């Protein structure tokens, strides 16, 4: 399944570039260059880039390149796209990974607490905050954090990135705000989802059975409710990964962080198509892989799937 989806992802990304209006050579050369070249020279270039072949053959060539790490040449930076991406990738993965763990832990805990304290002021306040949290544009939150915490209070540096292996303290100081922004939406939406899922499970017949056995509320929640309630939450983990990647495009711009998100934006502005293509492809494949992990963890949560 996952392999098929990855295949479709690559075909889509391939076609996006090939369906470009005009000659695919524009990817490698800018328009004035093409006008200066003679027809013979253009034909030579086409053969060189394999563009005279049929579309499926071109796809196979392109895929072959991908497997050897050949994403093509960046026209703006004039280096191999693979090298460029590999250089910027760890930053995004580090921030995104932190945001993912934090949003999972906080979102699910908040949701469970809200559901258990349903109707109390805690539930009302946290639910309202979650409802507001899913409406706030992350880049805007970043700007406000910079304004309040860096500019007004002077507690944290405005932006930039230092690797945690280089200087853990300075790195953490710089990471706090971007990770907050990246995880905010996920925390809020996971809180909402977990809460409603918990409330639905609490109404189920088997929870009534658990009560009828004289179990204490704590045990009913930990043993009988949470596992069931997490099933729909786990389904959206892939969506959260995609969302955090999407957010990194914005947040890395706000906080001046040189990850692949910022690289993507710069590449679009510089019309550096192959870079955009490579980043899109890598992010999509990582989302597919996290979905695969989700599918596997499903079996642990839900025995009905394990035995099917």
């Amino acid at each position, binding site marked *: 399944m996952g392999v098929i989806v990855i295949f479709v992802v690559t075909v889509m990304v391939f076609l996006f570039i090939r369906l470009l209006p005009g000659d695919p050579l524009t990817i490698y050369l800018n328009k004035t260059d093409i006008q200066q070249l003679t027809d013979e020279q253009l034909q030579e270039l086409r053969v060189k880039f394999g563009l005279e072949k049929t579309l499926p053959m071109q796809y196979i060539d392109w895929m072959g390149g991908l497997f050897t790490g050949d994403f093509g040449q960046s026209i703006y930076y004039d280096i191999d796209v693979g090298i460029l991406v590999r250089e910027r990738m760890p930053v995004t993965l580090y921030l995104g990974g932190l945001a993912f763990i934090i949003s999972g832990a906080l979102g699910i805990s908040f949701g469970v607490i809200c559901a258990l304290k349903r109707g109390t002021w805690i539930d009302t306040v946290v639910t309202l905050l979650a409802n507001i949290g899913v409406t706030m544009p992350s880049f805007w939150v970043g700007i406000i954090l910079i304004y309040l915490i860096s500019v007004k209070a002077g507690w944290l540096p405005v932006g930039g990135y230092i690797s945690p292996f280089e200087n853990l303290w300075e790195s953490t100081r710089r990471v706090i705000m971007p990770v907050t922004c990246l995880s905010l939406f996920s925390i809020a939406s996971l809180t909402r989802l977990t809460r409603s899922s918990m409330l639905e499970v609490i*109404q*189920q*017949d*088997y929870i*009534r*059975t*658990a*009560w*009828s*056995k*004289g*179990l*204490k*509320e704590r*045990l009913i929640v930990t*043993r*009988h409710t949470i*596992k*069931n309630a997490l*099933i729909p939450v786990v389904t959206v983990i892939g969506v959260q990964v995609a969302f955090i990647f999407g957010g990194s495009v914005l947040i890395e711009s706000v906080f001046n962080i040189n990850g692949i998100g910022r690289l993507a934006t710069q590449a679009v502005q510089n019309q550096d198509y192959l870079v955009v293509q490579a980043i899109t492809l890598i992010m999509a494949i990582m989302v597919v892989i996290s979905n695969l992990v989700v599918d596997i963890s499903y079996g642990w*949560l*839900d*025995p*009905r799937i394990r*035995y099917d």
Partner: protein
Amino acid sequence: MTPLLSVENLKTYFHTYRGLVKAVDGVSFSINEKEIVGLVGESGCGKSVSMLSVLQLISSPPGEIVGGRVMFEDQDLLQYKSKSEVMNSIRGAKIAMIFQEPMTSLNPVLTIGRQLTESMEIHLNMTPRSAAERGIELLRLVGIPDAKNRLAAYPHQFSGGMRQRVMIAIALSCNPKILIADEPTTAVDVTTQAQLLELMQDMVDRFKTALMIVTHNLGVVARYAERIYVMYAGHIVESGLADDIFLDPRHPYTIGLLNCVPKLGETRQEKKLVPIKGLPPNLINMPANCAFLPRCDYVCDTCRQKPWPSLEPVGGQHYVACYREIKDKP
């Protein structure tokens, strides 16, 4: 002899957007040790709600127990909160319950063993190991083959009838004084129904447990119950020994119920099944007079003018809530 459990004037209301639903409105009943009692009525008459109220398993909101007493072991259970220690120590340990839906009453993500042994671990302070041993024994008693390996199975691997057997095993695991079976056989097929009922009778006999069977099926109680309560629209309309109810029904509703049960040995020519006309009443904003009035064949002026009649003795343990004395029963 004081009864094991006696419920007095129980009132459970539901606050819905359409208005107040008086699902149970002044219901009294009792059950003695080792007795099998039936509570009969149409769906939605409040019989399940009465039973859930005894164990305070009503979801609140929208439900609320607004009045009455539930006397068990010389104390009123309603003085304790639903989530209190006392209620937790009674539920499952002294009063156990089996529910209508075997497909949804077991937790889909926990093994049968986990769900079977947890109440023994809590109420009987058993170690997981001894609880598992007793669990296997219980599964064997309720007729589940290969009990030892079935502890690790999940509910979806069992059929409806098997799940209900597991529910019976869970309910009886702590030797409760009372077993409440809320429509235990409604959702399973007819052969399984009979087997389950036999099993329950057998089990309560073995464990010396009193059994309260809640059902809409008169055939079920006819065979097993010693005493019967007939419920209609949140009220008990008739109660008595099984013979009183079946041989000498007094309330028009009971008479109607009996008329739509086929009797063995009767041919169609001799007697036709007669359905009760009309539909059960909507429990929202009910009038003060008898709720059966619109469907009653014996309605009189008194019924229309006076409020809902109270249960009055008509001899022995037989009680009826009706103004009419019906002579010419069909």
